[in-house]
């Protein structure tokens, strides 16, 4: 962003909220370039089964990244999305496997657990004014510990709930279009993305999320109950983490209590690559989705090219820095 003279550049960004659209193009062309490179490098890359595998691999991180996007747009951060996802999976395990209740109740419980955790984080941040980084760092550890305590540190299997793993792995789409058995998990990702995108652009919750990230004090002075909306954003992000919990539990057909830590960083990476500003005020779900896809395509493509896992991590890290640098360069040119 230019330093003093916003005055000197009227209308350059007119009609486009924030600069999301430019960055989306940037991230999108990055994704296309990656796909092109890998397709040329390996014949296996563009096969239907591999494309579906990439999408499937994106579903959990994509949903988590959408949760993180909601929070980051407000200028906050949520480090607890990964362990919250696991916590929600464990809760689903308790309801379905330990208590033997019907499937819908288990799903509801997972989402409710996520929402509740988000409510707690949001309340601590908004009312007690503990910085989001600290609050969610604490929540990350609390939820990790609780998952281990509740599950007795052992995985909870969903063998007693037939059809549970179909939530993620089954393919409703494939029963209509047999040639393209798109897993349900991917459909759920797209559905979550659509809803989140809609909420951000068309509802008061979304409007206040951008507004708070842009200038929280101004929103407060406008008579908006900032605390309440902030709590609502964290709660919504929590609910989305609940969905991620269901997705990962279904994919593994079990709740793995030791899993989860580390997912938050991958989610935040997707958000940042997708052009959402960590200082808040601007960002898009579509960008985040592209960001998550870039990470999965990289991991998948490098694996196909037999690059060691360790190097994949190095490349992902480099891409994060490059993505943000490209954005800075672009803004400077404007």
């Amino acid at each position, binding site marked *: 962003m230019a330093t003093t003279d916003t005055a000197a550049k009227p*209308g*350059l960004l*007119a*009609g486009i*909220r924030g600069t999301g659209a430019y960055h989306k193009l940037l991230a999108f062309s990055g994704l296309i370039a990656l796909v092109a490179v890998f397709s040329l490098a390996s014949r296996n890359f563009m096969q239907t089964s591999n494309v579906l595998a990439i999408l499937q691999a994106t579903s959990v991180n994509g949903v988590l990244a959408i949760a993180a996007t909601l929070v980051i747009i407000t200028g906050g951060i949520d480090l607890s999305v990964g362990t919250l996802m696991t916590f929600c999976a464990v809760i689903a395990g308790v309801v379905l496997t330990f208590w033997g209740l019907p499937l819908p109740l288990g799903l509801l419980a997972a989402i409710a657990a996520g929402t509740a955790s988000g409510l707690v984080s949001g309340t601590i941040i908004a009312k007690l004014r503990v910085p989001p980084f600290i609050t969610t760092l604490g929540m990350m550890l609390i939820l990790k510990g609780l998952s281990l305590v509740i599950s007795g540190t052992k995985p909870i299997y969903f063998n007693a709930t037939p059809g549970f793993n179909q939530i993620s792995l089954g393919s409703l789409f494939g029963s209509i279009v047999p040639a393209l058995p798109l897993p349900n998990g991917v459909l759920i990702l797209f559905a979550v993305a659509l809803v989140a995108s809609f909420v951000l652009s068309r*509802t008061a919750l979304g409007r206040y999320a951008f*507004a708070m990230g842009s200038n929280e004090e101004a*929103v407060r002075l406008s*008579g*908006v109950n900032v605390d309440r909306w902030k709590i609502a954003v964290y709660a919504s992000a929590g609910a989305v983490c609940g969905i991620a919990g269901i997705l990962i539990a279904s994919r593994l057909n079990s709740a793995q209590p030791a899993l989860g830590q580390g997912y938050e960083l991958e989610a935040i990476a997707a958000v940042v690559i997708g052009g959402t500003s960590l200082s808040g005020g601007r960002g898009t779900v579509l960008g985040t989705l592209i960001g998550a896809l870039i990470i999965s395509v990289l991991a998948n493509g490098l694996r196909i090219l037999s690059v060691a896992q360790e190097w994949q991590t190095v490349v992902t890290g480099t891409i994060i820095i490059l993505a943000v640098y490209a954005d800075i360069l672009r803004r400077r040119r404007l």
Partner: protein
Amino acid sequence: MKPDRDTAAPQRLELIGLSKSYPGVKANDQVNLRVKPGEIHAVLGENGAGKSTLMKILAGIYPMDEGEIRLDGKRVEIGSPRAAQRLGIGIIHQELALMRDLTAAQNIFIGREPRRGPLLDEPALNAAAAAIFKSMHLTLDPRVPVESLTIAKQQMVEIAKALSYRSRILVMDEPTAALNDAEINELFAIIGRLKADGVGIVYISHKMDEIKRIADRVTVMRDGEHVGTVPAETTPIETIIAMMVGRKLTEEALAIPDFTGAETALEVRGLRRGKEIRDVSFAVRKGEILGLAGLMGAGRTEVARAIFGADPLEAGEVLVHGRPVAIRRPQDAVRAGIGYLSEDRKQFGLATGLDVRNNIALASLARFVGPAGVLREGQMRDTARRFIQQLAIKTPSDSQEARLLSGGNQQKVVIAKWLLRDCEILIFDEPTRGIDVGAKSEIYKLLNALAAQGRAIIVISSELPEVLRLSHRIAVMCEGRLTGILPGGASQEDIMRLATQRESAVAGPTDARIAS
């Protein structure tokens, strides 16, 4: 002061015996204020006089300790910003309270978005904002993000926001601080229309000429107390200033020193960058104060930033003491002895979280590095104290956080920073913006003293009286061009003529450098 209860005329707003204390400070002590419908009531006072506390109580941000607020004769409680809005009290904050990433319309209706069911009704939102802009005779696309608007336009968005509450009372805090003359006229036209509609306006400002121009009455505050309320038209400015500062300020007449044979300290030749800077050449001599005047957007700040290396140049030469210097970055400028004091101290000039000592040392930290890289704190402290004394910086100690100082004293800290760096050429961009009358004259004295010591000074100011009072010569810009250089003591009319003149009237741009 006892509230006078004999006023029979209906009052739009009445503050009666309002008091507010913070630990150790009485911010407002028994303040009375009455605003009639359609009255423009100016509130004046130096920084710290209690104006902003008063405003924040009206805005519902702070509760008052004691007193009574009445709107149209009815006693009201203002418990929150929302309550203030509902009561029809609109506030235009000095530091614009806008959300930069949102559009103009979204800003205006934040918290009150028109909805269709659970969804935001964006077309209705834009239509409503467009209607307000139309009523203000303002051409502005409500869908534009405020980030891309000029400060003046952003201010208009703020006013539109206040109007959208159907405000009965509008409190404006220094609304013209960032506006040029044309924009001020536009603003005053809008204020005039509101006045005609019966809105009561509380107008907080430091600018006497504006108050004379639009205010009906003036209430002066000092140290949290209500000094008095006087009619604006018939009370002489000197009287009002005396009420504000509690003493008489003597205006020093401009004395222009003899510059024959004075060495040229800074010379720029043929500076160019796009439409912002078009072939600008001038020179400043040692001991000289050169005013740089022009309307907003004339390119004054751009020239200053380019000389300082903060923005790139397409063409042009900068000579310091006759030698060309290559300035690509601010570091190069500082090394050449050029200091730039930006118009936005908080954003660029001052590390507000650091204390006074560290702010002063910031640009010269290298000279305080001791063995093993450890900073010599004692030496830093001594230096800071020397400057605090020299420049009469009002601060409890050198370890006070810079953000806690008043605007005038913050400015002095920034000046101290550049003096410590041995800058022989100082560029001041709006040196007194947001600084009250008393502190202003101190800054003026300081600038004169710095010039008398042989430093070359460039002062950019949007306030013509300030330019006229300080400058030994006045360079005037319009639309990126230098349209002329006037001798000190030129008339405001001469400056305005050049400031609105599209093409250079001077025979050739090179002549401008020596016209004095």
